[in-house]
């Protein structure tokens, strides 16, 4: 079991690391095609990373350790997430540690590191972006926790592999009202957490609207490459989490190598489809005004809370 488990983890991390920039490239390409442009190609984010890594590292005068460590911490937490989140197999050596609360705390740690990095520069933009990011994060983290709690009640555990394995065995759990409400809430939270369109426009450089971009404005060279790469990793892991929580079909629960390989193929397909659907939807969406963002997030928090109450009470307190 152990060799297959370790192989599954290695495959998962490899796929996430290699695939994260490709996913961003795919999403940009989808947008470009739908908008009638030719697009830069799916490989462009990898070319950007290569270009940035060759440049000289520069840090602004007067910045401290927070600025220098933030990109590393962001990438490191995202990589740990890529190990923990059950994307292709629920039967891995780290499954006992893949708890929901650990996953959300790691997400928050990455966000916090970047916000501190933005504050450390002392510029107006950095501080503004950091304050906006923390406003959003404060509303998003409880939503993610709540939405997954709704799914953890029928499973009886907050351990993600247990939840996913339970849902793969009993698909009826997902078609219940609690499951549907949790899907809607988690989808909004993932969009906000990864800085996608209705909350934050990843392609903008307009001061009034930017959130993520304002925080990372002072980064250059290899640091910028790390920041971009970290953001891509987070998007990939979150979309993968969404896919394995709500469409767990084909995920490997046993210890056979073919099942793991099949699951790898399926999860790549699922994340690609999700990413393309998101990119296609973004063509038609406008960014929500910053002051309406708390409204959107409060709505998704409410959906998550309803999902928890509904799964607790309608499901008949542990009676399933």
């Amino acid at each position: 079991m152990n060799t297959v488990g370790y192989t599954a983890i290695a495959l998962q991390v490899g796929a996430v690391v290699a695939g994260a920039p490709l996913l961003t490239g795919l999403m940009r390409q989808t947008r470009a095609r739908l908008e009638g442009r030719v697009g830069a190609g799916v490989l462009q984010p990898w070319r950007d990373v290569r270009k940035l890594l060759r440049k000289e590292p520069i840090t602004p005068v007067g910045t401290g350790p927070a600025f220098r460590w933030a990109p590393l911490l962001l990438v490191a937490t995202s990589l740990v997430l890529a190990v923990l989140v059950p994307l292709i197999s629920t039967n891995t050596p780290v499954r006992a540690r893949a708890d929901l609360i650990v996953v959300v705390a790691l997400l928050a740690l990455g966000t916090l590191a970047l916000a501190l990095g933005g504050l450390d520069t002392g510029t107006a933009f950095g501080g503004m972006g950091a304050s906006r990011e923390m406003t959003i994060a404060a509303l998003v983290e409880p939503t993610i926790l709540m939405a997954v709690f709704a799914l953890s009640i029928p499973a009886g555990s907050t351990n993600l592999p247990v939840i996913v394995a339970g849902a793969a065995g009993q698909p009826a759990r997902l078609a219940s009202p609690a499951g549907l409400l949790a899907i809607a809430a988690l989808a909004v939270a993932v969009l906000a957490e990864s800085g996608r369109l209705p909350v934050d426009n990843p392609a903008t450089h307009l001061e009034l609207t930017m959130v993520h971009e304002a925080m990372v404005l002072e980064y250059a060279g290899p640091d910028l490459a790390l920041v971009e790469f970290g953001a891509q990793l987070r998007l990939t892991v979150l979309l993968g989490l969404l896919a394995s929580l709500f469409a767990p079909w084909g995920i490997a629960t046993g210890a056979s190598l073919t099942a793991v390989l099949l699951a790898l193929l399926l999860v790549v397909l699922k994340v690609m489809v999700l990413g393309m659907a998101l990119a296609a939807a973004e063509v038609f969406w406008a960014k929500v005004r910053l002051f309406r963002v708390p409204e959107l997030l409060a709505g998704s928090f409410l959906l998550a809370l309803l999902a928890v109450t509904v799964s607790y009470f309608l499901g008949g307190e542990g009676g399933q």
Partner: protein
Amino acid sequence: MSEGLFTQLLDLACGAFLLAAVVVLWRRELAAIVRIFALQGVALAVIALVLGLHEDRWGLIVVAVGIGALRAGLLPYLIRRALRAFVAEQNGGDGGLGRHGGSEEARETQPLVNVAASLLTAAALTLLAYAVASPLVELDPTPATRALPVGLAVVLIGFFVLVTRRRALAQVVGFLLLDNGITATAFLAASGVPLIVELGVSFDVLLAVLVLQVLTLRVREAFGTTDIDDLRELHD
């Protein structure tokens, strides 16, 4: 109908019923609010239909069809007609500023409690409904009584819409949400009331909406808007 399928369908209908009440709080355009109210009427009819099919009571099925026709068809139609009349009048009435005025009348621009706070209040109200209903549920835990808090939550949310909205039509929707919640509670707690009582209640609601519609028109004629805040003093 098998027990599992019955529970699943009832839970799904109750989930949609509660969700519709929440989305009414979320949206600002009155046209969208009325559409969601109609969807909630459909969910209520499905609750009655599922209960009727489960217990083989033809009276309940007839009531379900009647509720569907009234709450998903007639009432939304009446509100929508009033809304259209306001908007058209506003557009025709004062030329250049018309577009702006029309959209003003068709939106709940400034509820007394802002939308984010009212969504969080709705969450608290739902929890309150669950807390209040739990002793009732414990008396006889069947799938229908377990869903009882949903009806109570919609009653509370409807009351909240009624007191925090400014436009008269949004308040009418709040009143109807309240009534939907009461009907759902009756269905879930006691498998509905006798047919004749249900008929009486339905006609009462219809009449109330017609009266409120006339009243709203009068308010509109007197003040040029349906913003209730303008009713500070009596006019003759």
